[in-house]
């Protein structure tokens, strides 16, 4: 049995918009095991980034946590992230939990050299010896296949997007974190650079042994990198399981839809299918299943009763939130003409 590293329990987060509330996370529960790599997957706007920043309690000012906790287990001590005072949180951020927010291409202060970003980070966490910091920085930059001297004395704008992403990765490893969270780290990069970053991540994970939380809307990246996958839909986790189980036998029709709509570049057919409809409005709390509007398997139970995330019968650790969950969901989906085809 794997040991737990982060426990998200019943987390709800809402944003106060200009005119209405947005319920971005609704009663999300998720366990993250030590040393694993888990992918958070879902369409745009389903709350992935909101969950990502919750891990270090760095939610924007117009947000509110309305229920739940996040517990982080370090040195067999349980730390309640939302109850930790800011000064303690500051120490924890980047030294134990590294969260690289979406938009990492602008992660660096444009008027500071890369060197000073390393120094600034290390100083903030109590390091004193500049030579030591720079030596570690050099090692890490070499580790991500960069010319360390040149990069250290560069300004951010002098580096390409892919280089900046690598620099950010090595900056992330400066303090030997236990957990690394990456929010869409490759979205802004071209396919080739994207591939390199993924390969690099695998190597780094092997060497430094951190727990990896990988946020993406791209299921194929998740398949490549993750041991486990958590599928999110409209502010909820709808299916969680081992990557193999999720791909081979998805129980939730949404997961099945995502899998079949991932373009397959091999084979003669290059057709792309997609789930019809669009995600629901997050400014109301659902009475029933949030996927109801788009679901091919829906029935009357789904209107008024919200499915809970529960373990499937056949498999330990595979959880799904659907009234009609079954191991045959994928078959159903493939046979029906539910998915719309884009040639």
């Amino acid at each position, binding site marked *: 049995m794997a040991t737990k590293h982060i426990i998200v329990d019943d987390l709800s987060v809402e944003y106060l918009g200009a005119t209405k509330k947005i319920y971005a996370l609704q009663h999300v529960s998720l366990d993250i095991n030590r040393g694993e790599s888990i992918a958070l997957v879902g369409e745009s706007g389903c709350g992935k980034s909101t969950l990502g920043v919750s891990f*270090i309690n*760095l939610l924007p000012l117009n947000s509110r946590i309305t229920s739940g906790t996040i517990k982080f287990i370090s040195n067999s001590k349980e730390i309640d992230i939302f109850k930790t005072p800011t000064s303690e*949180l*500051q*120490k*924890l*951020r*980047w*030294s134990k939990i*590294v*969260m*690289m*927010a979406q*938009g*990492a*291409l*602008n*992660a*660096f*202060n*444009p*008027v*500071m050299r890369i060197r000073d970003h390393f120094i*600034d*980070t290390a100083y*903030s*966490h109590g390091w004193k010896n500049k030579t030591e910091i720079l030596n570690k920085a050099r090692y890490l930059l070499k580790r991500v296949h960069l010319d360390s001297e040149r990069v250290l004395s560069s*300004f951010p*704008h*002098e580096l390409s997007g892919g280089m900046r992403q690598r620099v950010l990765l090595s*900056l992330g490893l400066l303090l030997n974190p236990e957990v690394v969270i990456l929010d869409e780290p490759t979205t802004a990069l071209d396919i080739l650079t994207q591939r390199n970053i993924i390969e690099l991540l695998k190597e780094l994970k092997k060497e430094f042994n951190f727990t990896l939380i990988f946020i993406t809307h791209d299921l194929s990246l998740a398949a490549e990198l993750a041991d486990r996958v958590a599928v999110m839909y409209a502010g909820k986790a709808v299916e969680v399981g081992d990557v193999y189980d999720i791909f081979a036998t998805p129980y939730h029709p949404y997961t099945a839809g995502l899998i079949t709509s991932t373009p397959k570049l091999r084979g003669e057919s290059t057709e792309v299918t997609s789930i019809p409809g669009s995600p629901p409005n997050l400014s109301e709390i659902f009475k029933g299943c949030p996927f109801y509007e788009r679901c091919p398997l829906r029935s009357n139970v789904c209107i008024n009763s919200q499915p809970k995330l529960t373990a499937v019968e056949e498999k330990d650790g595979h959880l799904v939130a659907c009234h009609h969950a079954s191991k045959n969901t994928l078959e159903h989906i493939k046979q029906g003409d539910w998915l719309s085809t884009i040639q």
Partner: protein
Amino acid sequence: MLKKILSNYFFIRLVKALVTIFVVATFTFFLIRLMPGNPLDIFIATQLAQGVPLQEAQERAASLFHIDLSRPMMLQYLDYLKNLARGDFGVSIISTNTPVSKIILRFLPWTLFVVTVSLFISFIGGILLGVVMALYRNSWIDQILSFLASIISSIPNYVIAMLIVVYFGVKLKWFNIAEIRGSLSPGVKPEFSLYFLKDAFYHAMLPIIVYVLTTIGSWMLVMKSSTISTLGEDYVEVAKARGIKESRIMTSYVARNAILPLFVSLAISIGFVVGGSPLIESIFVYQGIGLKLSDAITTRDYPVMQAIFLIITASVVVANFLADLLLGVLDPRIRTSRN
């Protein structure tokens, strides 16, 4: 080598600056001569208004002014350029035989003093308040400050100056208007002493208050919006995630970047320091270059006007040039794009 110099960014800038100054000098030379009336007419008119008979007024004018206004304009212009090239601004028409450079040296320091002090207070104050407004945006502090800033920066400075004179001076008698006017009390000489400094500040106080009040509002508002947009930058978010202290983030990440766009306006303001404000200096009878300029305009003292306009132009151009250099030092992205 030569090619490298010619294509150098700063060389090009320098040439542009010199051309600008030359063009403006030429335009002012001709424009001020197109103003209705010339120094002689104006002098005679004032004499007439004082009850001097026409005949006598004309004789006085002829003996006072040794200028020949009938000389072709083009020749006068060439003379002007020739003298200018030697650093000679010429001689005042009205204060006969006084070199223009002497007049400028006497009046300019006072304006520089008042406007520099004001600009310093106003820029620093505006930036600090702007950051506070951005940090506590939509709080009552921000709402009050924004309201005051936008009101105060839309009132013309001479209106505020008049208000101060009429309300605080005449009505409330907080200060003695007759005593505070001018740039020094009678009998006080410029020297390095506390006594002199105190007197200088006492006389400069009202103009400084007016300048600060009328300019601080726009610094505040610009800094506020610049800070708000910088606060939303990804690198600020990432800096927080890196566990960097709030105070360090505010200074090195937010304020440091938010201030960059303000430098251009600061440069332009520094350029205008030299010109002062004729209206304000007239209202407070402050013996600065602005007051001298408005005198020179009324009496059509061409050489003095020309010299003051030229100095204003030159300082605006030079200030812009320096700001450009400074911006290159402060913003590495700009530095790169120039090389």
